């Protein structure tokens, strides 16, 4: 990709306070032109601020030059949210990675946005707490990215997604002012600005500090692996567990291909002859955990479970989870590239939609692998492919569109946790009327009337009046 050469006045101004932390080298720009999606954009300048004041200065300078800007965490987003479009200045939070304060009396921690999700939980662990949202990417993704995408993870089934775990956010608004949205009390006065900022994908400003809730570590944790000879029984077990009044801490499913792939990769002793496995985790006090295990056993027995393996110790538990959390890496054993999808369907429709996913993949001559958050109906079909094959990306995109359509038809939604970004912005019309979207845009405009913060994301082009930065959408965007 050829990058537009940097506006030298802008670069000069940024360097006056950032020094060599404002960069326009070809290598650096290449690095920041992509995220975890297949999309690619073109940053003009990359800045690496170390504090709120620097972020404020960057935003102010960008405004003066009418130059869009874009916050970026670790770039693991899968919807193209951090892909720079409209030649923006990228504000990377990598150097804002300090845990500022752990306040046990309020059960919160103030952290900078670049702190990595797992680093935070590791730091809290000796105190008996953790940060509940645990995306599968938690070793590398940032808290700022979690906030912007309202991220989830396996344990969000019982504990809720990021929004339920963020009390306050210091933000540099698109006009350069600094605000703290929300506060450490239960009922901040006025409208819930914090709530609307969470999940706004960087389009309402740059988060510079986040007050996250600390969740106490459960006294007991048990992890079970259930295998089924028929994926339909596995899916029916998911619904039946919930209907039986049990909300496990996590309830994940893997299909036959995923099991094979993962087993070859981590040797966790997954049953490779099974059609599907469920990974169920139950936590809490001893009695509740025992009761939960009984419920799971009874429900699974009614649905023809093969075997029920209860992890005997932490080591075995870690091994079972290692398989789940490394599933994406394991795809490389089948094909060099993959496209990870994210939709939600009612739990009762899991089987129906899964079967459609396989048919869609077959029809497009692709391999579909399913590893997903079954407990909340959050499908993650992985389409494995080899980008060297001619025309393969068109097939991947066509299959993706068909999967999204099938999910919506089943009463589902566009995204459970990865967000809309660029990837799905032109699909918004499948779920929302033009007027719904225009109303959403009013809210965005209240924060960013000039449309400088992460332009061209979330809402389809045409639904905004302020899309003034060239309508260029990067190659490969399946919009």
């Amino acid at each position, binding site marked *: 990709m050829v990058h537009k050469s940097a506006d030298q006045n802008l670069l000069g101004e940024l360097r006056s306070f950032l020094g060599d932390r404002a960069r326009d080298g070809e290598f650096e720009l290449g690095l920041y032109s992509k995220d975890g999606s297949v999309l690619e954009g073109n940053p003009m300048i990359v800045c690496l601020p170390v504090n709120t004041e620097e972020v404020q200065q960057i935003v102010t300078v960008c405004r003066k030059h009418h130059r869009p800007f874009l916050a970026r965490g670790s770039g693991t987003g899968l919807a193209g949210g951090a892909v720079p479009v409209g030649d923006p200045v990228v504000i990377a939070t990598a150097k804002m990675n300090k845990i500022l304060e752990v306040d046990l009396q309020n059960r919160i921690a103030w952290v900078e946005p670049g702190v990595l999700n797992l680093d935070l939980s590791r730091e809290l662990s000796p105190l008996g707490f953790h940060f509940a949202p645990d995306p599968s990417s938690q070793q590398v993704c940032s808290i700022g990215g979690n906030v912007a995408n309202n991220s989830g993870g396996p344990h969000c089934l019982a504990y809720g997604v990021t929004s339920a775990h963020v009390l306050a956010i210091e933000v540099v608004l698109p006009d350069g002012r600094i605000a703290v949205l929300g506060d450490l009390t239960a009922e901040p006065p006025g409208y819930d600005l914090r709530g609307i900022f969470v999940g706004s994908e960087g389009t309402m400003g740059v988060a510079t500090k986040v007050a996250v809730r600390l969740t106490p570590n459960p006294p007991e944790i048990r992890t079970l692996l259930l295998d089924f000879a028929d994926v339909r029984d596995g899916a029916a077990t998911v619904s039946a567990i919930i209907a039986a009044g049990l909300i496990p801490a996590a309830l994940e499913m893997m299909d036959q291909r995923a099991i094979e792939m993962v087993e070859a990769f981590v040797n966790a002793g997954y049953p490779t002859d099974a059609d599907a496995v469920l990974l169920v985790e139950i936590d809490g*006090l001893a009695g509740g955990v025992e009761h939960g295990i009984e419920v799971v056993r009874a429900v699974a027995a009614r649905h023809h479970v093969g075997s029920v393996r209860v992890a005997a110790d932490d080591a075995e538990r870690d091994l079972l989870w290692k398989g789940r959390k490394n599933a994406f890496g394991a795809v490389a054993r089948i094909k060099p590239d993959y496209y990870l999808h994210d939709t939600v369907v*009612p739990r009762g429709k899991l089987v129906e939609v899964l079967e459609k996913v396989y048919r869609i993949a077959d029809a497009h001559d692709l391999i579909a692998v399913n590893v997903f958050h079954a407990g909340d109906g959050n499908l993650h079909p992985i389409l494995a492919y080899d980008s060297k094959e001619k025309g393969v990306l068109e097939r991947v995109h066509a299959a993706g569109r068909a999967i999204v359509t099938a999910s919506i038809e089943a009463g589902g939604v566009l995204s459970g946790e990865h*967000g*809309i970004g660029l990837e799905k912005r032109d699909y918004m019309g499948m779920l929302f*009327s033009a007027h719904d979207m225009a*109303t*959403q845009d009013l809210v965005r405009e*209240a924060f960013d009337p000039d449309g400088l913060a992460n332009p061209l994301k979330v809402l389809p082009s045409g639904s905004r009046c302020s899309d003034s930065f060239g309508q260029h959408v990067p190659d490969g965007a399946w919009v």
Partner: protein
Amino acid sequence: MSQRDAMQQEVDQFAKDVGASDPVTVVGGRTHWQVGGLPEPEAREVRAPEGVWAHEPEEMTVRCGAGTTLGQLSEELARHGQMVPFDMDANATVGGVLAVGRSGFRRLRYGHVRDLVLQIRHIDHKGRIVSSGGPTVKNVSGYDLCRLLVGSLGKFGCIAEVTLRCLPIPETTQWFTGSLDPFELHKKLYRPSSILWNGLQVWVCLEGVASDVAAQAATFDFEEAPGPPPFPTVGRLSVEPRDLQRHVTSSKLACLAEVGVGIIHTNEVTHSRSIPEVNLSLMRELEERLDPNGRLNPGRQVLNR
């Protein structure tokens, strides 16, 4: 006519009632009619549709008209062993609870009411139906306007239809009382549902399987209590949990504090805290965009300084 069509008709009718001109105010159960000040007298009163339209126990979701009372809702959910832990007056309506946006006394365990909201259809200032959020238990599709509607006192729109996440009714719910240090209890109990403290006495709500509740109670030498004590109703404060002790001990009139949450129910008159200038300007921008003529619940103030 299918049930879905019938519901749609009710929502359409509500949209007509709200209309596109002159001031309106939605009436719920009138249980907290005075919050934010009374509406202007010329405001036309309208009522949101009522009825539990779809409870799907396997999905743990329920869709209902915003005018449905909490009593109706709990009765319907309890048939399948489920609940929405709002903990408020049975005559209050779902729309009213969300418009006011205050949480119930088991917030310590169940979180804020906003986290139970999945989808809202509301009527905007022009009388048009707007849908936000999604019907599934997990969703990040688009800007989640539900977050703004909760606690908006109806000033961003009239809530017509709501989809909520339900929870299983626990096997045991038991209140206890004693004269222990509430802050020690908060440290030592695992996920209690509520810890209430009036400065002298503590009430604790424990939920879960019977053996866990009994075991926790035995550790702390609790006495069973029939329920929470009466809540002082004159004022309501929310403070940082770490400042709670100071507020309670310096309170001159009766109060009851939610330990770990930081809400204090008191018989003293309380005033809403001031909103920082930058936040206030953003909030005004939102009001101007979502209700440019100020016809929704005029007279009431979310932004009283």
